[in-house]
């Protein structure tokens, strides 16, 4: 959208791949609705003048709407509003559905800070560093109350809910620093729960990645941390991590991003949300062919352990049948994205 229009509407810079599209819809809807409203007001004003009361106690004609006119107006309105909706909903689907090449960053929110954990095990508070042009997927959870991850410049917002993972993604298109705000009221310092996204040019990002000055001792990547947790918490007594072995619980090999068949025949995509739910509320979805014997870990695994386990299970993904690309129709099939039953 032209820069002057962005300014006129007081919008922040358009720094993500979807911002321009969303703003265009914004401008269209505002213009169409305001122009037609103004027409209605003008008609009202004209009638107030034209038909002002000139004498008391006059009689007026009995004018009643024709059914066909009423129906016509209703249908036209319906059509207009649905048109807005169609465009808006399609955009929504794009915004909700991370592309396959997205890199995952884990986000943990708590009163009143953001913590970002990268796949290589590093983590940082309140600052998220990403390369320009790459799709970044955020797998987010909260440790206490509900927060919402909001980057106005990216036009995205997603609630961050304790006890489950929600996801958001973006592709930053302009290098720069953009504020991250918490948009869901979360207590006294809600308005101070701020962070920032630093979008670096790819070369700068590469430099940042292997910045030698950063102390890496004591850092353990999430995957190996997850492996430790799985042993410590005895998950591995019931779950194997290799293919083929039959144990009390299903194998984790190749689990992530596959479709799991549940008791009762429904199929669900094993994404972060599903994996988290399987730990927090194992009896919500019982894998077909297994007994509901897995204990719940709600309240005993903390958010970082959960993140590590999820990342570990993700790392065990191996194409079970290399060479055959399974078609993915997530938008329709995914309902494990935190939707409540």
């Amino acid at each position, binding site marked *: 959208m032209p820069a002057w229009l962005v300014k006129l509407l007081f919008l922040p810079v358009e720094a993500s791949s979807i911002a321009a599209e969303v703003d265009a*819809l914004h401008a269209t809807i505002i213009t169409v609705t305001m122009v037609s409203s103004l027409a209605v007001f003008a008609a009202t004003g004209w009638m107030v003048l034209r*038909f002002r009361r000139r004498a008391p106690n006059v009689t007026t004609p009995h*004018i009643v709407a024709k059914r066909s006119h009423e129906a016509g107006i209703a249908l036209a309105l319906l059509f207009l509003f*649905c048109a807005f909706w169609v465009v808006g909903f399609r955009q929504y689907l794009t915004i909700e559905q991370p592309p396959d090449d997205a890199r995952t960053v884990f986000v943990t929110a708590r009163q009143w800070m953001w913590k970002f954990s990268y796949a290589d095990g590093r983590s940082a508070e309140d600052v998220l560093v990403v390369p320009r042009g790459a799709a970044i997927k955020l797998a987010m959870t909260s440790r206490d109350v509900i927060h919402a991850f909001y980057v106005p410049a990216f036009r995205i917002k997603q609630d961050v809910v304790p006890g489950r993972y929600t996801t958001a993604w973006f592709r930053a298109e302009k290098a720069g620093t953009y504020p991250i705000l918490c948009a869901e009221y979360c207590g006294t310092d809600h308005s101070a729960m701020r962070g920032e996204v630093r979008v670096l040019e790819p070369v700068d990002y590469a430099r940042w990645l292997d910045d030698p000055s950063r102390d890496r001792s004591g850092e353990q990547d999430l995957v190996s941390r997850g492996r430790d947790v799985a042993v410590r918490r005895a998950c591995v007594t019931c779950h194997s991590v290799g293919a083929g072995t039959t144990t009390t619980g299903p194998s984790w090999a190749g689990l992530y991003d596959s479709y799991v068949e549940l008791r009762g025949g429904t199929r669900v995509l094993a994404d972060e949300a599903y994996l988290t739910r399987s730990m927090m509320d194992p009896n919500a979805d019982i894998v077909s062919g297994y007994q509901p014997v897995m204990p719940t870990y709600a309240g005993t695994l903390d958010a970082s352990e959960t993140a590590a386990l999820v990342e570990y299970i993700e790392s065990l993904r191996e194409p079970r049948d290399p060479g055959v690309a399974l078609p993915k129709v997530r938008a329709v099939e995914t309902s494990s994205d935190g939707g409540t039953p």
Partner: protein
Amino acid sequence: MTATATDLDVTAAPVPTAAPTSAKPSSYLTDGTTVRSWLLTTDHKRIALLYFVSVSFFLFLGGILALALRLEHLTPGPTIMSAYTYNRVFTLHGVIMVFLFLIPSIPATFGNFLLPIMIGAKDLAFPRINLLSWYIYLAGAALLIWAMINGGLDTGWTFYTPYSAHSPSAVVPAVLGVFIVGWSSILTGLNFIVSVHTLRARGLRLMKMPLFVWAIYSTSIIQVLATPVLGLSMVLVAIDAGLGWGIFDPSRGGDPVLFQHLFWFYSHPAVYIMILPAMGVVSEVIPTFARKVPYSYEAIAYSALGIAFTGFLTWGHHMFTAGISAVDAGAFGILSMMVAVFSAIKVFTWVATLYKGSISLTTPLAYVFVFLFLFVFGGMTGVAVASTSLDLHWHDTYFVVAHFHFIMVGGALTAFLAGLHYWFPKVTGRMYGERLGLVACVLVFAGFFVTFFPQFLLGNAGMPRRYYYYSPEHQPLHVISTIGALGLGAALLLILGYLGWALVYGEKAPDNPWGSRSYEWLTRSPPPTHNFDATPRFALGPYDYTRPDEDAHAHAEAPAQGHDHV
């Protein structure tokens, strides 16, 4: 605009009731003057006034809190209060305005006063329950105020879990207060529904009822069906916060998003509890001052029902960012558009009613035009937020704050003021001054617009709501908004002032000062205790302006013996 004061005098003249007798006829206001006769009254008109006094008090209280919030935002950092206080103040502002002012405002005052008269009844179906519902309202309100003094409440009026379960403030008494107020709302709604079905006068078919009755009737359906869900969720929150069961707390196996579904299942329809009665006022005022049959009675009546029913199916549009599935988001988005269609039909019908009318721009009509302007603005921004993708940017920002204030203040409060001026002569038997009325109306509009329009821009700029600190670049818009709020406050005080004055010194009102055909104007001003001295014939519809006043009046006269043939 043309001067209207003179028109009024002339309009009033030809109405031939108000038989000039020497003794002042008794009215509901003079039948019993002791405090007891008021506090134990079962007269729906007196109960309406009791409600009026209480809701006005809460409007005032909520308004003071709003001004405090606006003053705080004069600067990006601390101005007059701490973040701790700020969170309590905005919560109370919301809770008071929604539960203690907006929801009861029009139904419990004008609805209570007018519904029985408009259907030709002596009172509501359950007069004692009507009084009970006022006391229940007071009890709930008292508990809320108590909570506010003892610990305050900092959850926002939405009580989102799990925050509300952990909040250090007085959540338990506050949500129980809301629970109790809900009962009063249910009882009022029930009373109205039963009255409409059982107490209509002879000849008064459903499709001959004034449109205000249709609006109140639709509202009552929502009150009766949705409020129990709110009550239930409030009790669950109280259990979570007080006994720590963890129903909505994930660390104990609960589901926080479930609360949002339950809460919005009520609180979205609650918006229609606020706006439908407002639409009812508009549907009365426009035909009267345009002296015109509504362009489509059916469209207005049925769209009220349509809004009431589809209103139940749109709650999810508050949760587009909560992680609901794409299918849910899509469905809730499109259902929300339906509500917009019904509302737009109403707007077109109202405007078309003006065509070839005889329009007298008095204060009530001026407020109705303000309503139209602000409501259309608010409604169209509603369409914008229902276009799912846009909500991702706007959700929980000032854009949404502006959107719902356009509906709730620009719509509901403005219509409340329209009704207040329109029925003031009927209720009090006095006339208010037309000139001051119009001045105040313009001030209300200007104050409102200056307060809330900048908030759309703040939302566009990405400022979340419920923010104590904000970034300095947003300051100019906040300052403008605060100035507007002060203006709005002053305008409301002006109204309070001149209406108070008119109450005592105002000119005596004729029975039908506006020359309206609607049934409440068939009785005296103020009405007698049993509403009509003799039950009129409801021979003509409530909007029949195709014949002159004298003729219309002859048709409504109480039947003389022998030809009761309606």
